[in-house]
């Protein structure tokens, strides 16, 4: 007589604290081992892509912030870069450097959220408090620059909205000077911690082949040993002028992804310091009046400036007919925008290439054959943002 093997199907989520949003996993269990995992997504679908087709290019900047909401600066940069490519507009050097500074600070903030929430998932709840303390400093820097802690709406097509405030460089330096000590503390607490290692090592392994086949990018791909980083492979916004390393893992497990992200925070700090040291002078917005608003002072003197202002505000800009793809390295991977224009003031199609979407697709491969408790680690280690998955 043979024993009938029964599997148990359970729903993990959509309301589950360790799914980092509203993600539902349909898990088929054999005892405590995962036989199959099927992610169900769409709970956070807001139709942003449809919405963008009905708004002007400038209005859309406010929308893109809300997609990958933990790294809005990257989102804005990718979108602005795509429109700038469509228009063929040059961004002034100073604006490029400011963009780099904010994006790299944003990367640190985003990775700190990842670290803190991973800590919560693994019952190291004090870690979240430490990480959010540091992240708060970055959000304050963001507020100093753009007036907003999150959803800044600070980048413009052709540059940035305003120059950095005078007190920003010193405030940023103060934070960056303290930050490595903090990181050392966290690493001392976690990197060789027995429990941390046992929960991470050999868990949620993603092979190089699978990572490529699923189009995984970002720290998840680099954890599998492939040194692909958009900042190095296709340098944008002057990234080729900074020195930084691309950390990679060997085994493709959750622990490697942890190591990669920790090192990335140090590298981001390095980039910001270089950018602050070498910040060039000059304008922060393109002088092309067909693209960017004229400065306030000009409006009282020049009729032409008033006309440009009126046209841009009432109608928006008209890029040429065509299609472009532009991508940046967001904290989660390759964030790309594919924009189709028909020459009118609204895009015909804006496609958001979401790194979290592709990374999540590799999750079933990572957890199959593993333990139920490790699913939590797997989700944390790919660091998805559900706003990015569902858009």
């Amino acid at each position: 007589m043979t024993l009938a093997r029964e599997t148990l199907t359970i729903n993990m989520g959509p309301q589950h604290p360790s799914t980092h949003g509203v993600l539902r996993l349909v898990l088929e269990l054999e005892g405590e081992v995962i036989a199959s995992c099927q992610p169900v997504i769409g709970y956070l679908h807001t139709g942003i892509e449809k919405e963008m087709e009905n708004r002007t290019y400038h209005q859309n900047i406010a929308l893109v912030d809300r997609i990958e909401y933990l790294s809005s600066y990257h989102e804005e940069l990718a979108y602005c870069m795509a429109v700038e490519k469509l228009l063929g507009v040059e961004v002034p050097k100073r604006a490029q450097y400011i963009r780099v500074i904010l994006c790299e600070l944003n990367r640190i903030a985003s990775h700190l959220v990842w670290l803190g929430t991973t800590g919560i998932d693994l019952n190291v709840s004090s870690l979240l408090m430490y990480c959010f303390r540091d992240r708060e400093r970055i959000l304050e820097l963001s507020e100093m620059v753009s007036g907003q802690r999150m959803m800044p709406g600070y980048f413009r097509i052709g540059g940035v909205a305003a120059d950095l405030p005078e007190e920003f460089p010193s405030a940023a330096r103060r934070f960056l000077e303290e930050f490595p000590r903090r990181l050392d503390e966290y690493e001392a607490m976690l990197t060789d911690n027995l429990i941390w290692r046992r929960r991470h090592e050999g868990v949620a392994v993603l092979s190089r082949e699978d990572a490529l086949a699923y189009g995984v990018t970002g720290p998840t791909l680099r954890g599998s040993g492939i040194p692909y980083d958009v900042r190095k492979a296709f340098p944008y916004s002057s990234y080729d002028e900074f020195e930084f390393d691309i950390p990679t893992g060997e085994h493709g497990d959750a622990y490697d992804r942890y190591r990669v992200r920790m090192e990335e925070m140090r590298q981001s700090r390095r980039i910001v310091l270089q950018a602050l040291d070498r910040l060039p002078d000059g304008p922060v917005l393109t002088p092309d009046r067909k693209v960017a608003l004229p400065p306030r002072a000009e409006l009282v003197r020049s009729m032409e400036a008033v006309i440009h202002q009126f046209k841009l505000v009432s109608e928006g800009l008209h890029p040429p007919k065509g299609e472009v793809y532009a991508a940046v390295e967001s904290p989660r991977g390759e964030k790309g925008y594919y924009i189709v224009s028909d020459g009118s003031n609204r895009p015909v199609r804006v496609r958001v290439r979401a790194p979290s979407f592709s990374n999540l697709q590799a999750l079933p491969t990572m957890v199959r054959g593993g333990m139920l408790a490790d699913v939590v680690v797997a989700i944390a280690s790919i660091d998805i943002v559900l706003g990015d998955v569902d858009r």
Partner: protein
Amino acid sequence: MTAPLTPVQEFLVERLGETVVEAHAFRGDATLVVARERVVDALRAVRDEPWRFEVLVDLTAWDRYPAEPRFEVVYHLLSLKRRERLRIKTRIPGHDPTVPSAVSVFAGANWFEREVWDLFGIRFAGHPNLTRILMPDDWEGHPLRRDFPLTEEPVEFHGHVPKVPSQIVPRVGPVREDP
């Protein structure tokens, strides 16, 4: 628009011959438009040696309504070895929106194709599980089609007057009839 073709574009034009409809590099993005019967062949040909476009970065579509052929399905490929991107597109008519599935070439095409089916109603022949992915299972219509107007859903709140049909006027297409 008349930039010279990149080597991989030349290779594909030669390999696929007449079925390449168009090749250009607007703003430096190498693009090929291929007949839909050959699109999977094209993907497979560039995935392997020596080109190694082995990452399907993105798969999406857009609606050219009311023009025909109505839809354009867009594949964005990446070669890590050559540090190069390639865009392959195919055009399909509105009365028969079907494309061969690319899942056999790129496992990652699975969810992308489900999303395109969900939002555009384009069928991918040979897809293992072509179901809705972002919209609810019982949703009617495909929201990213240009003739699907942007409307607001009536939300039942006290004192809230729902705006249906939407006050945001869609640019093209007829207004959806309310059931």
